[in-house]
């Protein structure tokens, strides 16, 4: 699904990504983990074309990411922090994305939209301006936006950070169900037990380099730890010792 080769990104003197080579497989949930500042969000943003890499290349489904925008039609993105124009309502925002995404003359509402809104219990909030919504509700709105257009690839940057347990459960079920339909997920999160439930593959980033990339069960087997959190701390401590 995604091929990344030799990716380097600097912010001024600071090298955030120092040569990333990575293959992200179709139809699987890939978790990107690593301490704060490891380069997770930068990597995600380069895949989306939000950040320009200094060297290396990214190919999404055969199309190189180099200023073209068409490939993003098949991507759903949920940013770390959901902030929208304060004076617009949720319904207007959804309509806007629909306007931008859909071919002219297509149906006004997507068939899945109602179900999605119901799933996240968003209906009562859609007519209010965004500034009147709580952080969690905005996060749900952001989740609906990511899933809305039936994307092949979903990129979720710490998606459950602001969600209540109910919404977060709905969210996880949805991820697994959609993965089983063949969709690809890239997920970054600090909640290790959550990633343990969801991830098929794990990418461990540290100081801008990949320290582990492979299947979750391989990671568990090679580190011989009880869970993902311990496996990652095991990798980390090995790094520190080396």
């Amino acid at each position: 699904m995604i091929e990344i080769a030799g990716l380097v990104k600097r912010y001024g003197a600071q090298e955030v990504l120092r040569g990333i080579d990575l293959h992200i497989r179709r139809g699987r949930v890939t978790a990107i983990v690593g301490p704060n500042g490891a380069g997770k969000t930068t990597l995600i943003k380069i895949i989306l074309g939000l950040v320009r890499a200094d060297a290396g290349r990214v190919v999404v489904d055969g199309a190189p990411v180099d200023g073209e925008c068409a490939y993003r039609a098949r991507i759903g993105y949920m940013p770390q922090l959901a902030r929208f124009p304060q004076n617009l309502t949720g319904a207007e925002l959804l309509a806007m994305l629909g306007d931008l995404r859909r071919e002219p003359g297509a149906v006004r509402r997507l068939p899945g939209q109602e179900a999605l809104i119901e799933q996240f219990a968003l209906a009562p909030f859609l007519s209010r301006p965004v500034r009147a919504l709580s952080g969690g509700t905005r996060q749900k709105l952001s989740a609906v936006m990511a899933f809305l257009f039936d994307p092949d690839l979903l990129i979720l940057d710490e998606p459950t950070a602001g969600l209540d347990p109910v919404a977060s459960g709905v969210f996880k079920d949805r991820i697994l169900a959609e993965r089983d339909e063949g969709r690809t997920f890239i997920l970054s999160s600090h909640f290790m037990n959550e990633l343990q439930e969801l991830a098929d593959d794990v990418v461990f980033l540290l100081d801008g380099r990949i320290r582990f990339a492979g299947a979750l069960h391989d990671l568990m087997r090679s580190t011989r730890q009880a869970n993902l959190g311990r496996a990652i701390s095991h990798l980390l401590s090995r790094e520190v010792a080396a």
Partner: protein
Amino acid sequence: MIGVPAASRKIMTYELRDVARSRWLIAYTLFFLAVTDALLRFGGAGKALVSLVSITLFVIPLVALVFGTVYLDNARDFTELLLAQPVTRRQLFGGLYLGLALPLGAAFAVGVLVPFALHGLEDPAQRASVAVLVLVGLALTCVFTALAFVVASLSDDRLKRMAAAIGVWLLVAVLYDGIVLVVVMLFGDRAIERPMLGLMIANPVDLARVLLLLQFDLSALMGYTGAVFQRFFSGARGTAIAASALAVWVVAPVLFGLRMFERRDF
């Protein structure tokens, strides 16, 4: 709108809705309504126009820069979301720019034109002056909205961006005359007319002022660069040159801002 890509138009439409509901914009409209109305009530059309020239030159750059910077700050995450859609940066820039420049321009035009329309204006020369005032005000709105985009891509630090916006305003609207005076004091004994013209063209606020005062025939209020300009180019030729230079100012920051927007990381 011919020539604007469909995606830009869609973004602009939603941006317009958002901006139109902001209290800032309503206050800005009310400000020009109240000031124009008061000036007309207490001074008559002639005096009102002259006062409006100074207010326009002072307030429009400030509001476009500050409102623009604050707006783009708030829209930063939203910009990220839009850039994750199948939209090019150029289209998004177009949508954001028009969604900001149009309501600011409309607020100013409504604020000035409605009181004049209510009070009635018989003299055709004064009508022309009102028209020129509104056109120049719209041009300044475009220039400084685009400069707000440039300022917004200068730094990732919110405070620095705001300081830069206010700095630009202080430079072009307040300190410029002083700088010109210093130049004149230092090089007063040489032929400095041409550099003076260059200085005037380098400042859109100065250009706008000369354009307005040529229209109003008020060389006393023109300042040093304006007086030099009038000696060089009087009448229609001067107006044409100043207007073309201002037109360049409307286009150049947009292109520059777009270039920065296309290269930026979000």
